[in-house]
């Protein structure tokens, strides 16, 4: 019993930091609808700034508790200011872009912050020295319990109370609540949205910064903090209900306690437990514990999507020329050039498959790497356990991916918006955890080696042609499907589910089929990739891989059928070049993404299409 009590209290202490981060994220989302990937970066900055500020204060006035508290608050305010600055300089310029496009910009910010932090604070973990009073403990039921953790337990509720006062008693708070419920209405009432959004970003970022600062006595400031926390923060926000601060509070308690007791009951399930909880909650309560359906649940890609037209003749010529140029590559490119080309071809299909969901389907998946990875593992498991040749492996790839697409899709298409996106993320994390931890089957993080092509395809040129045939072939089929009646039905379900059902269309079924097609296509891409690389690893399923796919689609432009192709080539090309030649490639990539976002708020292909139509009129 004593043990259970101490474990419970430990869970409560962990919940506080989690709540601070999640409450900031949920407030930002509620008002601005920005899915802020950079929130983890603000958390990390909070820890680093607190490390610097607290130590400076201690050097000046001795290691006093009040200076410690002052340092934490100053760090939080500084992070708040940084958040407001990011909003003013970056996000403010792209609110009119399709929803989720801001995600791209915040991801660029993540990369930039990573390198800035490395440059300013250096590579090593930075521990805050703990004076005696930070090491103190009390006896709880005969067990030692850190005094600092006891104080943390109260920080969560106190912040919740302060936020409640803020939202009930101040004009700013009332506006925040109103905007969370109905943003258009608040705008119509003549409220200065710019100031409101900046204020919200200040508040949310300061909360994240405080979250990073208060964990400093128990953990180092380190460069992995940002990505370690962000997925968990999103889980809490979604489980609580997006935009709901009390929901975030409840969810942070739930998640922290699940972890505290989970490691006792199932010590090996640490990776997957929170995502299982999230998946379960979303299946029972599609809007989280305390969330409400969004007042105007817009299609996630914007209310008025442009018409998808048949490709103009010029585009067909460009496409055919590019294909011919790629097929002729063995004549002019070296082996490395062919390797890169094969990767580009694979990612074109990967992005195109996600685009089918995101564009015509209106289904935003944050976990598309799951199907890419399942394809790769389908091929690799075939090689490992059945010793099948490549030809069979490339059939197993889409089969396995498609099969999981059916199972996961069945749950996913019943949700909408960000909740849907987060359920796809949860499923992807479950698949990733299986690949990572089910060592007997998958080889764990050491992966499966020796997935090499059949002898006839070992020649780079032949493999390139194989990849072109499979990946570009599948991409062309996906394009045809978008222009075919199925694609129109899918878009109909996206544009207006009410109308679609009223003309006899089964929206959920259309989305499910799209989901399975997208999964199987990503599976083909994954299978080809596995044979191109010769090995398969859980990194193929990891969150960054899913983010890559999102970036490619968004960068190219969700609303153009050529968008994913342009986006895949642009993004992967950019990444390859910078990784190879620039030491600070993350900052460079981040800046490039931000620049592209600001220059082309409808994506690169979308931009080209608009300029083309402005000059030559719409092709019909």
């Amino acid at each position: 019993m004593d043990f259970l009590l101490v474990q419970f209290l430990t869970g409560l202490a962990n919940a506080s930091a989690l709540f601070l981060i999640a409450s900031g994220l949920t407030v930002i989302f509620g008002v601005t609808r920005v899915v802020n990937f950079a929130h983890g970066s603000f958390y990390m900055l909070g820890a680093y700034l607190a490390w610097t500020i607290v130590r400076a204060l201690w050097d000046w006035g001795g290691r006093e508790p009040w200076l410690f508290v002052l340092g934490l608050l100053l760090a939080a305010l500084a992070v708040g200011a940084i958040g407001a600055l990011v909003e003013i300089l970056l996000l403010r310029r792209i609110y009119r872009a399709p929803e989720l496009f801001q995600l791209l910009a915040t991801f660029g910010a993540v990369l930039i912050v990573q390198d800035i932090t490395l440059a300013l604070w250096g590579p090593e973990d930075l521990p805050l020295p703990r004076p005696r009073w930070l090491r103190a403990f009390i006896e709880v039921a005969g067990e030692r319990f850190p005094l600092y953790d006891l104080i943390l337990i109260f920080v969560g509720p106190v912040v919740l109370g302060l936020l409640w006062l803020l939202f009930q008693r101040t004009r700013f708070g009332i506006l925040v609540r109103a905007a969370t419920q109905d943003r258009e209405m608040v705008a119509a009432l003549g409220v200065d949205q710019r100031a409101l959004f900046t204020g919200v970003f200040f508040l949310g970022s300061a909360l994240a910064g405080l979250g990073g600062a208060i964990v400093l006595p128990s953990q180092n400031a380190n460069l992995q903090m940002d990505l370690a926390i962000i997925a968990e923060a999103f889980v809490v926000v979604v489980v609580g209900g997006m935009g709901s601060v009390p929901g975030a509070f409840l969810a942070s308690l739930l998640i922290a306690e699940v972890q505290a007791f989970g490691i006792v009951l199932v010590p090996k399930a640490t990776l997957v437990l929170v995502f299982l909880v999230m998946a379960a909650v979303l299946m029972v309560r599609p809007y989280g514990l305390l969330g409400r359906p969004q007042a105007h649940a817009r299609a996630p890609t914007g209310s008025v999507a442009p018409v998808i037209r048949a490709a103009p003749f010029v585009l067909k010529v460009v496409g055919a020329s590019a294909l011919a140029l790629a097929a002729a590559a063995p004549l002019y490119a070296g082996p490395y050039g062919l390797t890169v080309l094969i990767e580009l071809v694979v990612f074109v299909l990967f992005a195109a498959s996600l685009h089918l969901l995101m564009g015509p389907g209106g289904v935003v998946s944050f976990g598309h790497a799951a199907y890419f990875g399942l394809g790769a593992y389908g091929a690799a498991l075939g090689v490992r356990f059945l010793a099948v040749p490549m030809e069979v492996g490339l059939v197993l790839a889409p089969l396995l991916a498609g099969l999981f697409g059916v199972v996961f899709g069945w749950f996913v298409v019943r949700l909408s918006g960000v909740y849907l996106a987060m359920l796809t993320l949860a499923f992807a994390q479950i698949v990733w955890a299986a690949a990572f931890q089910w060592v007997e089957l998958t080889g764990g993080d050491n992966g499966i080696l020796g997935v090499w092509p059949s002898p006839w395809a070992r020649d780079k040129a032949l493999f390139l042609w194989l990849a072109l045939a499979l990946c570009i072939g599948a991409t062309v089929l996906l394009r045809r499907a978008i222009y075919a009646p199925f694609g129109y039905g899918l878009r109909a379900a996206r544009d207006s589910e009410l109308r679609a059902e009223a003309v006899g269309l089964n929206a959920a079924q259309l989305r499910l089929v799209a989901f399975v097609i997208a999964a199987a296509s990503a599976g083909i891409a994954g299978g080809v990739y596995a044979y191109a690389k010769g090995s398969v690893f859980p990194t193929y399923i990891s969150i960054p891989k899913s983010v890559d796919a999102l970036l490619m689609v968004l960068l190219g432009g969700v609303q153009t059928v050529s968008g994913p192709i342009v986006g895949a080539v642009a993004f992967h090309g950019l990444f390859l070049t910078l990784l190879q030649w620039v030491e600070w490639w993350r900052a460079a990539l981040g800046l490039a993404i931000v620049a592209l976002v600001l220059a082309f708020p409808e994506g690169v292909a979308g931009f080209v299409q608009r300029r083309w139509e402005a000059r030559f009129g719409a092709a019909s």
Partner: protein
Amino acid sequence: MAKTTRRLFLTAAGTLAAPGLVRAQGTQPIRIGEINSYTTLPAFTIPYRNGWQLRVEQINAAGGLLGRPLEVIWRDDAGRPQDAVRLAGELLDSERVDLIAGTFFSHIGLAVSDFALQRRRLFVAAEPLTDALVWEKGNRYTFRLRPSTYMQAAMLVEEAAKLPARRWVTVAPNYEYGQSAVKWFKQLLSARRPDVEFVAEQWPALGRIDAGATVTALAQARPDAIYNVTFGADLTNFVRQGNTRGLFERRTVVSLLTGEPEYLDPLGDETPEGWIVTGYPWDQVNTPEHTAFRDAYRRRFNDYPRLGSVVGYDTITAIAEAIKRAGALETERLVEAMRGLPFTSPFGRCVFRAIDHQSTLGAFVGKTALRGGRGTMVEWRYADGANYLPPDDEVRRMRPQTT
């Protein structure tokens, strides 16, 4: 040109400046392609890079190899095996490097190793610890420098077996490295001490330990001793919670790698005393080889060496010795030269075993202590890697013998 660009950034970062000079002499340099997780794990890979860079400069200052200067073309793998494999291809095909070296993560090491087998080119794995690299997945073209998970676990078992402790708990990050480290420790210790029992285990996710809960859960099992495999940020969290909650009092802790400055330094004044660890007491090893290395390193970088620095340094040393021994750069001759190759590390004489391509580089085994607010190692000894490898017939059974 491309390399110039890379160097431009390097110079700006203040980390590399000199090797550009060798190009001016007009001799075609010998080129080593090096891949590592520079942005993902800068705390470990930057001292490592310093190490190999120092060695390259020394060799070139002494006239190079086979009358040619040595040049390292390096790449950041972004922590992803798929990128490492592509970059290995790029280094071989575009940069025309003569061999591949590097990598830190086990899975990246394995990916590059399999690629090297496919392409039949030499790969000298510097840091990856996984046993599979030289055993289950070993191949003709891959050699590994650093003492493996098995070797380091075996070093600790030797000490652990002497302890009176019978009830053990383990805590390890939940991936292949942590799992192997626990598996070998349990297996080897149980063989020596049939009376021990393992009463609980914790598997925190790498980089996301829930330290308070983990500490309480371990204490709940009332162990006599704890075997720890966590490192980095997880280790700091674990130590701080363990200190405050009294987990380590009246208990022995046996801890893998914790004596390496990379992991010991961040513990600062909270370094627990008396943990039995593998590591690297850089300030106390005063053999002539090590003193020379340490002095040169300090002169060059105005910093003290980490374990990674030694690994980077030795990687180049071993490659240089192999090239000298082979007298050529042709892969098959290099491979033959690497098999059974002796070389001198700052730690002493080592050899790349012909049987499994594992080097006999060892580690220091000792106890942690707190001196002047910093962690350090005491009562240490050098454990020669050659003494902590399984019998040859067992190695033959584990390693594919076709190559």
